[in-house]
């Protein structure tokens, strides 16, 4: 679906922000693009969505070079959710969706009511202006805008930003549903939980370079200390011991009355983020 080879980009003469990026996103894959602010995530997404021109290297989408195909046909196949909910504040959710969807062929459009219902949008706000909506409701309308055209490739920038935990779970469910339908998803996020739960593969980008690319599971395994922390009771006292995983193969290698818990010391994706990018999450 997406093939990027030696991608470079500079803002002006001396400000190179992307240094020879290489990655491939397969059909129906959810690909996470993770990195700190100013690492080159947005620039890469803008190049992939055809907003920024003048890049070096080759970028192919749908099997065609992006600098060669910039037709309406290309934009009909993609859906983009921006980091902020960009909507006409004076129009209602319905009017916004009617307006944005009117640029697509009618046969590829989903029913507006159905999409909003799927996103659990409060029906009494349907005809009220967007200016009266909460951030979560605006994010739902923005997501509806991205999904309304049944895109084959979906670019999502911080999709769960501004949502409460229930909303975040719902959005993850909808993204999973898109994957089931065969939609390819390019996910840019700071939310490591989203990336861990949703992405088939993730790439860590820092200072315009991809420093790691693999499945979240394998990245965690590769960086695992291969140890577990065992909490147990022995002779009425609570104790805790750290042991190497191979030691477990023959059973618990120390005396105990009761095992209370076993925690692996496997790193989280957030630990990976800090390790690879050298920066914490903001």
């Amino acid at each position, binding site marked *: 679906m997406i093939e990027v080879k030696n991608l470079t980009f500079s803002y002006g003469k001396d400000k190179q922000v992307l240094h020879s990026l290489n990655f491939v996103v397969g059909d129906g894959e959810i690909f996470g693009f993770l990195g700190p602010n100013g690492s080159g995530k947005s620039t890469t997404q803008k190049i992939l969505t055809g907003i*920024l021109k003048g890049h070096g290297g080759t970028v192919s989408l749908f099997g065609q070079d992006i600098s060669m195909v910039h037709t309406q046909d290309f934009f009909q196949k*993609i859906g*983009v959710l921006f980091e902020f909910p*960009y909507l006409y504040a004076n129009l209602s959710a319905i009017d916004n969706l009617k307006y*944005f969807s009117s640029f697509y062929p009618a046969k590829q459009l989903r029913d507006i009511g159905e999409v909003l219902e799927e996103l659990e949008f409060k029906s009494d706000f349907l005809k009220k202006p967007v200016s009266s909506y909460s951030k979560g409701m605006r994010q739902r309308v923005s997501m509806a*805008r991205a999904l309304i055209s049944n895109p084959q490739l979906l670019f999502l920038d911080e999709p769960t930003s501004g949502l409460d935990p229930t909303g975040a779970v719902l959005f993850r469910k909808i993204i999973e549903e898109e994957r089931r339908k065969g939609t390819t998803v390019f996910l840019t996020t700071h939310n490591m939980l989203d990336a861990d739960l949703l992405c088939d593969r993730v790439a860590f980008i820092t200072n315009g370079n991809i420093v790691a690319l693999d499945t979240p599971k394998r990245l965690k395994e590769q960086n695992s200390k291969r140890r577990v922390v065992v909490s147990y009771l022995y002779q009425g006292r609570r104790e805790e011991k750290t042991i190497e995983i191979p030691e477990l193969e023959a059973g618990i290698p120390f005396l105990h009355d009761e095992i209370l818990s076993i925690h692996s010391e496997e790193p989280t994706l957030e630990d990976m983020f800090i390790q690879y990018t050298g920066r914490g999450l903001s």
Partner: protein
Amino acid sequence: MWKSFCILFKKDCQMMIAGKFFLVAVGSLLIYTLFINFGYINFMNMQLYNVYLYDPQGTQQEVSERICPVSSLEELETVLLADTNGVGIDLSSGTPNIILYYGSKKVDKHRADYASLLLYSSDKYTAQIVGTNTTKLKQQKEMSCELLFIEIVAVGFLGIASVLFKEKQMGVIRVHAVLPLKKSLFILSKLAVFLVSDLVFAVLLTLLNVGFFDTIHILPAVLVQTAILSLIMALMGFGCTMLLNDFKQFSLAYLIIALFVATPIFLSANTSIKMAWIDWHPFYQVYMGLKNAYFGVPVTSPVYYICSACGIAVLFVIVQTAFHKEMGKEG
């Protein structure tokens, strides 16, 4: 493409209705009409120029009753100091020497013509006829032209900025970057809305203030000049909105434009102040084109139309570049 253009055009009209732009335009139209018909005409309905004659040798036996004789050159200078619109004729050397308090060449010629006509009988002196308009109609055309120019330069320019700044603040311009439509249609639909609005305004203002029959005669030329000015101002407004961060910065730009565009033009066209460089001022040429159109003398020079088309094309390219830059900006 046509479908996308219609969708954008409809949305832009809705934005302008929501922003009460049309309401402001209708209000301006009413105020301008009331001003022209009940203010300006009465205000400008002043007495004819007084003509003072110093003829020590009594060379003129039969002069008009409207001429006031004076007894000395000093008296002539004194009355002209008091009556600055008056015209003095010094016949002490035998040939008439026209003396004025102060005035530009055009006004001088106008007043000198009038004084000479009073001095000599009509068979000896023929004043140059510059039009068949009555004084009232001349004033109506003059002020309609000026107010139309102000409306487009000031109100139209602000109008496009107010609509675009809203869209810029809402971030929806960036959404259009990923919609399946030709991006230049976004600019074209805005230009079309303001062009149609300015043309309708020009028709109504001319009809209400110049009258039906005269309007029919001058309207095509007026509309051509209105269209040129409207496109230039809409593109300038669009460009400024894309390049400037907020409405505060835009207000400053607006002040500068008002100072450098409108002020020298009105000063040059309507007062005795003459600036040598004014002929090189592009808006002066457009303003004079509009004024000449109102007085039934449309611009025929192809150079003018070629320059206007080139100017609009250059502005469009600049606006397109600024628009693409805006679409690529961060949130």
